């Protein structure tokens, strides 16, 4: 079914250009959400549409800029103790929630407790686990989080379990956004925050509407209102963009080439490297895959350049590790496994599998997964690796990979915050086997030690060196087939000014974006 949808896209694209003249509306309309958000409650923001909307309505102590920097949010500044354990956050004074209640340090403590409270049923407490006593509180072993205290109305002191230098980045995640006291039961439907946009209306599966908060502490948004339309089908979003009804549109992978080829559309395109990593998790505890040479053979067997060009319309950079090239510590692209079938066969033979091996390759039915899986299967076959594709819905693939039932699992990882740690630690640290993100079940004490050391390292350049070392180390162990880092491609209407493609999914808050006549 999906395939047929896609066949129709070029037909739609080939007809007519978008409206050239600015529309009469004053509302900025985004079309990137493909499904209804889970809630507007920050504590429940475990998916992308929720995270985006929460970031419009709320503020964290810190926030991301569109280009992925971490800047002050509700905290105007912070200090770290010499041992890296104690963070003192100085909060902005005079900030009010949209309903007029004042923001103070008490809200920070109550918010963090609420995120961790099992009764909230949010499911994403981990960004706060570095705080001393947070995990005990989440497990109901304590009645308060011992590591957080309010010195006065505008100062919060947070004590960590151990030094964790990138902690401020985690406080910019949607889930740690600050909510007012005693949120009512329907808070997720009627959210009240401090952010640049006030919540106006949510028509489920249809749209979200926001109005500017004229009193926003960081300067009111330049436009009066913002709408996020929820459009599940890419072809429909294309039509809406062509009709001039939406302002920003994420160009589907398969349509990228035709948009670039059309001069009228090409000039609307803007693109930037995303913190998204495509890979095939190799379960290092299963059969022949325990053997490092077999895993390396898998990497030599795949032809990523051709795959990128043929399936992804060139939208990506070949990965030579798990750290995206835009982040500190990244290993430059092109240093590592190259497409070399003879080498793959040789490694397999040396590992004792001259006749190749049989593996299951799990892949979801969404986006480009089926086509990528088929390409990988064809590549592997050339090297004598017989991959049996198990195409399932995303939920089943995730479950199989997390439970260690998949030999190979085609996956995509979206960063929560712009740091190499967000790739190395969840995807490969032995603490995160399974649901934590390490579907390779990779376990290397040396790698773990390097990542742990980087966690504690205060100096950014030293930390980046540790990241690089860890990345190179695991790359040689090949617990995954390293595919590519994705590149976002957006089409933006000519009347939209001030839009930049965000590095992190919730990095664009539309405060500087305007519709110009």
């Amino acid at each position, binding site marked *: *079914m999906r395939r*047929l*949808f896609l066949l*129709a896209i070029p*037909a*739609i694209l080939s*007809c*007519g250009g978008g409206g050239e003249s600015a529309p009469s509306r004053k509302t900025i309309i985004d079309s990137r959400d493909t*499904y*209804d958000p*889970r*809630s507007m409650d920050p504590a*429940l923001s*475990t*998916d992308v549409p929720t995270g985006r909307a929460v970031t419009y309505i709320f503020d964290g102590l810190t926030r991301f800029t569109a280009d992925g920097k971490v800047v002050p949010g509700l905290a105007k500044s912070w200090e770290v103790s010499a041992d890296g354990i104690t963070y003192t956050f100085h909060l902005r004074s005079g900030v009010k929630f949209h309903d007029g209640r004042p923001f103070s340090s008490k809200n920070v403590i109550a918010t963090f407790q609420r995120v961790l409270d*099992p*009764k909230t*049923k949010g*499911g*994403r*407490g*981990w960004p706060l*686990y570095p705080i001393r006593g947070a*995990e005990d509180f*989440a*497990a109901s072993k304590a009645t308060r989080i011992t590591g957080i205290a309010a010195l006065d109305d505008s100062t919060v002191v947070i004590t960590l379990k151990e030094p964790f230098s990138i902690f401020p980045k985690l406080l910019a995640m949607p889930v740690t956004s600050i909510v007012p006291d005693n949120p009512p039961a329907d808070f*997720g*439907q009627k959210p009240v925050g401090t952010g640049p946009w006030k919540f106006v209306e949510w*028509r*489920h*599966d*249809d*749209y979200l509407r926001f109005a500017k908060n004229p009193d926003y502490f960081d300067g009111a948004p330049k436009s009066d209102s913002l709408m996020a*339309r*929820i459009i*599940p*089908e890419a*072809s*429909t979003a294309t*039509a*809406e963009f*062509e*009709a001039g*009804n939406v302002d920003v549109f994420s160009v589907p992978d398969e349509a990228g080439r035709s948009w670039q080829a059309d001069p009228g559309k090409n000039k609307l395109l803007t693109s930037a490297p995303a913190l998204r990593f495509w890979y095939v998790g190799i379960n290092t505890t299963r059969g022949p895959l325990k053997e490092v040479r077999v895993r390396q053979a898998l990497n030599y067997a795949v032809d990523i350049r051709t795959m990128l060009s043929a399936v992804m319309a060139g939208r990506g950079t070949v990965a030579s590790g798990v750290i995206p090239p835009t982040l500190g510590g990244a290993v430059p692209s092109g240093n590592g496994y190259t497409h070399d079938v003879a080498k793959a066969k040789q490694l397999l033979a040396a590992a004792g599998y001259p006749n190749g091996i049989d593996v299951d390759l799990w892949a979801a039915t969404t986006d480009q997964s089926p086509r990528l899986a088929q390409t990988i299967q064809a590549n592997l076959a050339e090297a004598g690796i017989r991959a049996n594709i198990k195409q*399932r*819905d995303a*939920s*089943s693939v*995730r*479950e*199989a990979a*997390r439970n260690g039932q998949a030999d190979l699992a085609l996956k995509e*990882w*979206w960063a*929560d915050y712009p740091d190499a740690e967000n790739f190395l630690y*969840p995807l490969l640290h032995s603490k995160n086997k*399974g*649901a*934590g*993100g390490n579907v390779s079940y990779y376990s290397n004490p040396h790698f773990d030690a390097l990542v742990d050391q980087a966690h504690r390292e205060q100096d950014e350049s030293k930390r980046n060196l540790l990241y690089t070392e860890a990345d190179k180390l695991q790359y040689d162990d090949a617990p995954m087939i390293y595919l590519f880092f994705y590149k976002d491609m957006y089409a933006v209407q000519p009347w939209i000014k001030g839009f930049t493609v965000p590095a992190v999914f919730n990095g664009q808050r539309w405060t500087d974006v305007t519709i110009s006549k």
Partner: protein
Amino acid sequence: MFAFIVRRLLLSIPTLFGVLVVVFLLLNVAPGDPVQEMVGERADSATIARLRKELRLDEPLLSQFTHYAGGVLRGDFGNSYITQRPIMADIRERFPKTLLLAGSAMFLASVLGITLGVLSARNPGGWFDRLGLGIAYLGISFPVYWVGLILILVFAVILKWLPPSGYGGIKYLILPAFALGSRSIAFLARVTRSAMLDVLGGDFVRTARAKGLTERVVIVRHALRNALIPIITVLGLDFGYYLTGSILTETIFSWPGLGRYVVNAITRRDLPAIQGSVLFLSVVFVMVNLLTDLAYAKADPRVAYS
């Protein structure tokens, strides 16, 4: 008649209970885990275990079922695991939109399909009949999403007469209703045509014509009325198709109805939402079947209920 309705309603109770049991068991053997969907891409096992406990997913199947069935008996479908909203409120919000879409599609299909069928039957083999046959073939062969995309392309992107997608006034309704009804138009046209041909050959039609009635009266009052039974059957059967077809139509036209709700619930393994929607739709089916049977009696006095 009244006794018939009561008996049919009573008989539907075991059917619905069966639906409840089957859906519950199926969802429990199906792969995928609602808690993993809740926590997203990164989580720790302690959190997952706590959530399982909060949601009673760690309890034996029987106790989960009695808890759920008990809620349903009290008219409470529970809350969504994912969004935490009450399922009933979600269904109340979306079902009217699906009903509006399905009803409009049905209306379009009845008007266009029956008209096409009647006109085709007036002169079998004539140019209009052949044209109708062609339209019917196309309507039956094209899948609803393809028709939907073509409609968007032509009427929204090229001609710019109608909005491509969304929910609102009548201009948002036309394209999705037509897309959803397209297959039914074709079906109804064919069924009406053959039923009409059967009837038009009957003695009473000849009598009617012999009495000097106008062709219009003969066709509408005498022939069509007698051809209605198979048409009602098709309409009743098609209602199920409208509800399932609405899943695709709603996706393509970003129509915020129950079809998309179910699809979202399935992809996120939101068990109470899936169970609640399926149960609700089953009730709707039972009602529609009952209404269809009652419509037979209205159309044909020979049909009696006891």
